[in-house]
C-alpha cells in the first residue's frame, strides 16, 4: 500500500492514490510504517510550522497532523475543550482520546495561538506518559530571538533523543536540512507552475499531492513530487473563464478538499494560497552548511512566509500580500479561514483595509473542517468571480 503511488501512470491516478494519504486522519500509512520500522518513532506535529528536519535527523518520522477533518465525532473532547474554538483543537484531542493515534509516539506543538498553546497542556495531562513538547517561536525578531530559538531547538534535540534513542548529530541535521530544502524546492516548483497556468495544475490536486507529504518520509515525498512534475507537464490546458485568486487564512485547520474543488468549479483559479503552509514555510533554502541549529533558527525567524501567527518583524504583512497579488497577477483575494480562528480573523481586518486602498477585490468566508455542504460558499465564490469578470477592469 505504501508504494501504490509509485504505480500511478497518470496525473489523475497519482492524485487518487495520494488522496487517502493526504486525508485519512487515522493515519493508516503511518501505522504501516511503524509496523515495518518497529524500533523507530513517530512524532506528530500540530500545524503550522515545526522544524521537522530535527525529528527526521533524530531517526523519527515527522507527521503533520491536521486534526479530524470531519472524520471523527467529537465525543470525549467536548468535556475538555469548550465549543467556541476552532474544530481542529477538539478533533485533535478527540483522535487522541478515542485511541486512533496510538501509533503517534510524540506530539510537538508550536506556538501558533492561545488555543494551540493551551491544547498542549490539556494533551499533556490526558496523556502523561506520552512525549509532548511545546515549542516557543520567538516573536522578537533579533539576535536575542535567534539565540533563544536555537536554545529551544537544542532542548528539542535533547528531548527527542530521549524518545528515539538517537541524538541528532550536526551532520545528520545538515543532511536533513538538505532533504527538506529539496522538498520545499519541489513544492515551490509545483506552485510556481500553477501560478503560470492554474488550469493545468488544479489546486485541489496540488493540495493532495502536497498533503501526501504529511505522512510520508521526506525522501519518498521528494520522489512523488518529481513524478508529479513530470506527469503534470503533459496535461492538457483547458481554457475556461476564471479569475486568478490568492487564498489566505487556511494555514492551520484545513478546509475539506471538496471546498477547493467548489472554488475551482465556481471559476476561481487559485494562484497562491497558504494551505498547509508549514511545509512551504521558508522563502529561501535554509543554509546547508554551518551550525545547523543556528541555520534553522535564523531561517524560522527571518526568512519565512508571512502568516497570521508569526510576527513580521521589520516586514509588513500588508505589503507582503499586495506584493504576492502583484507577482501572481491575481485579480482578487479570498479570505477563507476556519470558524473561530482568532489570528486569521484579526489579520483579515487589516489586510482587507490594505486591499481596499489598492482597489483589489476580495471576499471572505468561514469554513469548518467537518463541513459537508458548500452551497452558500459556491454561490459566494460565483458572485465574486462574476463581479470581477463582468464589472471590473481585468
Amino acid at each position, binding site marked *: 500500500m505504501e508504494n501504490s503511488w509509485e504505480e500511478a501512470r497518470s496525473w489523475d491516478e497519482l492524485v487518487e492514490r495520494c488522496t487517502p494519504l493526504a486525508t485519512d486522519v487515522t493515519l493508516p500509512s503511518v501505522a504501516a510504517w511503524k509496523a515495518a520500522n518497529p524500533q523507530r518513532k513517530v512524532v506528530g506535529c500540530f500545524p503550522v510550522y515545526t522544524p521537522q528536519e530535527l525529528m527526521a535527523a533524530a531517526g523519527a518520522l515527522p507527521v503533520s497532523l491536521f486534526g479530524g477533518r470531519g472524520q471523527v465525532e467529537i465525543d470525549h473532547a467536548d468535556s475538555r*475543550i*469548550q465549543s467556541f474554538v476552532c474544530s481542529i483543537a477538539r478533533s485533535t484531542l478527540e483522535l487522541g482520546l478515542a485511541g486512533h493515534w496510538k501509533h503517534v509516539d510524540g506530539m510537538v506543538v508550536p506556538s501558533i*495561538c492561545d488555543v494551540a498553546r493551551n491544547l498542549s497542556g490539556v494533551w499533556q495531562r490526558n496523556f502523561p506518559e506520552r512525549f509532548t513538547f511545546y515549542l516557543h517561536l520567538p516573536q522578537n525578531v533579533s539576535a*536575542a*530571538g535567534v539565540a533563544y530559538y536555537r536554545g529551544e531547538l537544542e532542548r528539542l534535540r535533547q528531548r527527542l533523543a530521549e524518545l528515539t534513542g538517537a541524538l541528532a548529530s550536526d551532520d545528520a541535521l545538515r543532511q536533513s536540512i538538505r532533504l527538506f530544502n529539496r522538498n520545499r524546492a519541489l513544492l515551490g516548483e509545483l506552485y510556481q507552475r500553477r501560478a503560470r497556468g492554474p488550469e493545468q495544475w488544479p489546486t485541489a490536486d496540488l493540495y493532495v499531492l502536497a498533503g501526501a507529504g504529511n505522512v510520508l518520509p521526506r525522501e519518498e515525498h521528494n520522489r512523488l513530487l518529481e513524478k508529479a512534475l513530470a506527469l503534470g507537464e503533459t496535461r492538457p490546458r483547458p481554457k475556461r473563464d476564471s479569475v486568478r485568486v490568492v487564498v489566505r487564512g487556511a494555514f492551520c485547520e484545513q478546509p475539506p478538499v471538496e471546498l477547493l474543488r467548489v472554488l475551482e468549479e465556481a471559476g476561481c483559479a487559485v494562484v497562491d494560497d497558504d494551505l498547509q503552509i508549514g511545509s512551504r514555510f521558508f522563502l529561501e533554502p535554509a543554509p546547508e552548511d554551518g551550525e545547523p541549529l543556528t541555520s534553522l533558527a535564523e531561517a524560522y525567524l527571518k526568512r519565512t512566509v508571512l502568516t497570521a501567527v508569526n510576527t513580521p518583524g521589520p516586514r509588513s504583512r500588508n505589503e507582503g500580500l499586495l506584493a504576492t497579488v502583484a507577482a501572481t497577477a491575481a485579480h482578487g483575494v479570498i479570505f477563507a479561514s476556519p470558524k473561530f480562528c482568532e489570528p486569521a480573523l*484579526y489579520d483579515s481586518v487589516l489586510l482587507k483595509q490594505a486591499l481596499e486602498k489598492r482597489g483589489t477585490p476580495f471576499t471572505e468566508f468561514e469554513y469548518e473542517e467537518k463541513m459537508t455542504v458548500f452551497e452558500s460558499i459556491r454561490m459566494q465564490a460565483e458572485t465574486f468571480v462574476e463581479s470581477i469578470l463582468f464589472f471590473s477592469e481585468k
Partner: protein
Amino acid sequence: MGSSYQHQGVGRDRQKELLGQWYGRLENAPRDATPVAYLFISGNIGELLRSFGFELLFPEVNALQCGVKKVAGDFILKAEDLGYSSDVCGYVKNDIGLASSGNRGPFGALPKPDLLVCNYSGCNTYIKWFEALAELYGARVFMLDVPYRRTGAEQRTEDVEYVVKQLEQLARVCAEITGRPYDPDRLSRSLEYSRQAEDLWVKILHAARHRPSPLDAFFEAVFFMAPIYVLRGLPECVDYYRAAWEEIEERRIHRLGPVSEERFRVVLEGPPPWPHFRNFWELFKRWGVCCVASTYSKVGGIWDFGFRHDPARPLESLAEYAINCYTNWNWELRRQMLERYVAEYEADALVIHSVKSCRSFSVGQADVREYFTKERGLPTLFVESDLADPRYFSEAQIRNRIDAFFEALEHRRLTAPRAGA
C-alpha cells in the same frame, strides 16, 4: 455593631482618587509633553518605562472601565462595523471601537501612544491588538516576547536571559524616544517601592484564610488589585496598600466581611463578567458565598508564592516577574495553583467562570473541571458568559446553574453527618 469604623471604604475611595489623578495625567500628557507608553497588564514592566518618564496607559483597563460603566456595547459594535468578527475578544473590540471614536472614554480623553510596548506574556491576542493600534496610530511597536512557562517547576535561565536581553533593547528604544538615558538607580528605587507594595498586597490576599474571610478574594480583589498593576513602583501605591490593609484588618477584627453570613468558601477561576459585575456577585451572595482565592487577581503578577521585585537585580527580577503572570503559566502550574488555593484557603468548592472572549483563560478550563470533579472529588461549578461583551450574559441560565450547585452543596452538608459520609 454600632461603632463607626475608621478604615472602611478607604480601599475604594483612595483608589478612585489615585486612578482619577492618573487619568488626569494621561489627559494632560500632550499638553505637558509627557511621553506615553501603552502596555498590557500581564507582564507589565511598568517600572522600567516610568524610569524614563513615560506615563502608562493600559488598553485593557480602558476596556474594563467601559464594561463596568456600561458603555462597552457601543464601542464593540463600532469595532464590528470596522470588520472585527463577533468571535474575537471583546476587550480588543471595545478598545478599537474607543480608539476609532476619538479615544475618549468614560474617564476622559486618552493620549496617543509614543510607544506601544507589546509585552506578550500569556496572551497571543495582545500581539494582534497592538498590530491594529500600530496601524491606527502609526505608532512604533516594541515586541517584548515573554516565553510561556511550560516546563513545570524549574524557571529556565534561558527564558530569563532572553527577556533580560529584550529589556535592554527596550531601554535603548526608550532612551531614544524620551531623550533620557537609562537610569538604573531610579529603576532600583522604584522596585523597592514595588517590593513594599507587594508585601502589603500579599498580606491582604492572605487575610482570606480567616474564617470568616474579611475580603472577597475575587469580587473585591479585582478592584483592590488595580494600583499594584497600573501604579506599581510609585510611593503612593505603597501608601494605598497600607491603607487598604488597615481596612481589611479592621474588618477581620470586627468580623466584618463581604457577606453577612459566610456559608460557602470558594476558589474562583476566570475573569469577571465586567458589564454584569454586580448582578453576578449578587447571584453568589444570596447563597452566602465568599470567594477566598482567585486566579484573575494574579493576571498582572503572582506574588503570593514568594516572588518579589528585587532592587538589587532590576532587569532579572523584571524578567522573572513578567514570566510569572497567571496566564503565562501552563496548565500544570495553573492546576497546582488552584489545588494549593483550595487547600490553603479551606475552600468548599471551585467555581470556574469561562469567558468566550479569552481563549488564553478558557481553553482547557473544561479539562480542569474534569480533573477536579473526577479525580479530586471537589465540587466544581462551571458557568459561562463573557468578560467584556454585554450581550453574552444570560442571567436566567447562570442563576439556574449557581442555584442548582449551591442547593446541592447545602443539601449534602445537611445530610452528610447522618449518612456518615
